[in-house]
């Protein structure tokens, strides 16, 4: 069966498909989460140095991975949208942003919660946490830019442009922050050197990451449906307003 993918590049046809797919992804996310949590608490052994606190990595690291991955995907959809002038691509980017920001926020908070018992302070300016913080600024900037513009077409394209430019800058930012860290602290101190990876620990992080990933796709599909509906509504309203204007002009 040859699937005509282009059929689904129209918001109208994608809408029902997204509606059917979303629950499946959320269901898979739930299952993976159960497995991941089981591994996190009942399979992964106690760490010799960090005791039980290290278990926070099972949400901290997957959240951090997702925060970066989602930004990359956003940038990808932005590039596709700009290149092909496809509305749905822009909408997907818009749908992903809030979830990405949420994961960034979680990575920061869980990082602090891990750091406090380990290092005694609620915040440490280590390279990874600082880079996460800057990533949060980028997410917020992107969302602020999009909401500042009333013209959806301009909002889409400006947001896409910013997503692309900032995504390209992320490696540069990360590299400069690492450099900054070594300059000011001598040997690079990593806030949270994850314990030497037992297989179970790595597996736990991977499963939780996959759970977060499935969750993200499910949520993004749900949100893009809302975005599609919002814009349809807007377009109808504008059309109606135009009809009223034209009708009143004719009467004159």
């Amino acid at each position, binding site marked *: 069966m040859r699937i005509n993918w282009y059929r689904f590049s129209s918001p109208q046809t994608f809408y029902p498909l997204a509606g059917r797919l979303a629950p499946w992804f959320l269901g898979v996310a739930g299952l993976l989460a159960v497995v991941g949590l089981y591994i996190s608490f009942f399979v992964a052994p106690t760490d010799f140095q960090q005791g039980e606190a290290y278990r926070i990595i099972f949400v901290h690291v997957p959240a951090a991975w997702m925060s970066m991955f989602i930004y990359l995907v956003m940038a990808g959809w932005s590039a596709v949208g700009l290149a092909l002038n496809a509305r749905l691509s822009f909408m997907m980017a818009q749908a992903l942003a809030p979830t990405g920001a949420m994961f960034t926020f979680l990575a920061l908070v869980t990082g602090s919660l891990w750091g406090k018992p380990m290092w005694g302070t609620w915040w440490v300016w280590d390279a990874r946490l600082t880079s996460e913080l*800057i990533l949060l*600024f*980028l997410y*917020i*900037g992107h969302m*602020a*830019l999009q909401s*500042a*513009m009333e013209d959806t*077409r*301009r909002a889409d*394209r*400006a947001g896409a*442009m*910013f997503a692309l*430019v*900032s995504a390209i*800058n992320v490696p*540069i*930012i990360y*590299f*400069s*922050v690492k*450099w*900054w860290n070594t*300059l*000011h602290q001598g040997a690079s101190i990593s806030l949270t050197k994850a314990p030497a990876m037992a297989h179970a620990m790595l597996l736990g992080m991977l499963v939780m990451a996959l759970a977060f990933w499935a969750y993200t796709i499910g949520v993004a599909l749900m949100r893009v449906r809302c975005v599609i509906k919002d814009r349809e509504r807007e377009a109808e309203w504008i059309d109606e307003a135009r009809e009223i204007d034209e009708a009143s002009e004719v009467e004159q």
Partner: protein
Amino acid sequence: MSTTGILRTLLWRDIQLVLRRQSDVVATLFFFIVAVSLFPLGVGAEPALLRSIGPGVLWVAALLSAMLSLGRLFAADFSDGTLEQLVLAPVPLTLVVAVKIFAHWVASGLPLVMLAPLLGLQFNLEVQDLGVLAFSLLLGTPLLSLIGAIGAALTLGVRGAGVLVAILVLPLYIPVLIFGAGAVTASAAGMSPQGALSLLAALLVLGVVFAPYAAAAALRIALE
């Protein structure tokens, strides 16, 4: 008229506008001076403390001054319609933008390069460190104008553009700040500033090559 002819005229025009509106340049400088003076008032004037925070303070203040001046980059031409003309002109918009960024840097970046070493004296920095400071700003301020141009173009004509530009552009400024201030800090600590300065130079090359194109694309989006 040839492309170079048009660009030269544009450059000359922009520079003349800058010379005519000297108050803009002076305002930028005054903000820089005042902002720098706030720090000793805020943290105390202990000489060793000032020497250690000096590079960072001067760089952050320069960065904020550059950012504040971004509003002027496209606004004047936007409000009188010149910008739309430039977009339609037979000259590549990328080059037009590059010229405007250069003129903007002459007005807002170059004065900072010249003034910063003087202010550095207030922070008890050594002479060779002041030299590194000036050179780092010489490499860095064009980058600030280049990156800032993208932000200014994206937010053209938007209500509340000033704050929005800051939110967009400040995270992107961070590598420039790190390497620029880092060069001076390294020099003050007796290490070589070469590493940081080379990285800064590399970023500048990247910026010169890519930023005008991105800013031009952003202008097109804003003017559609």
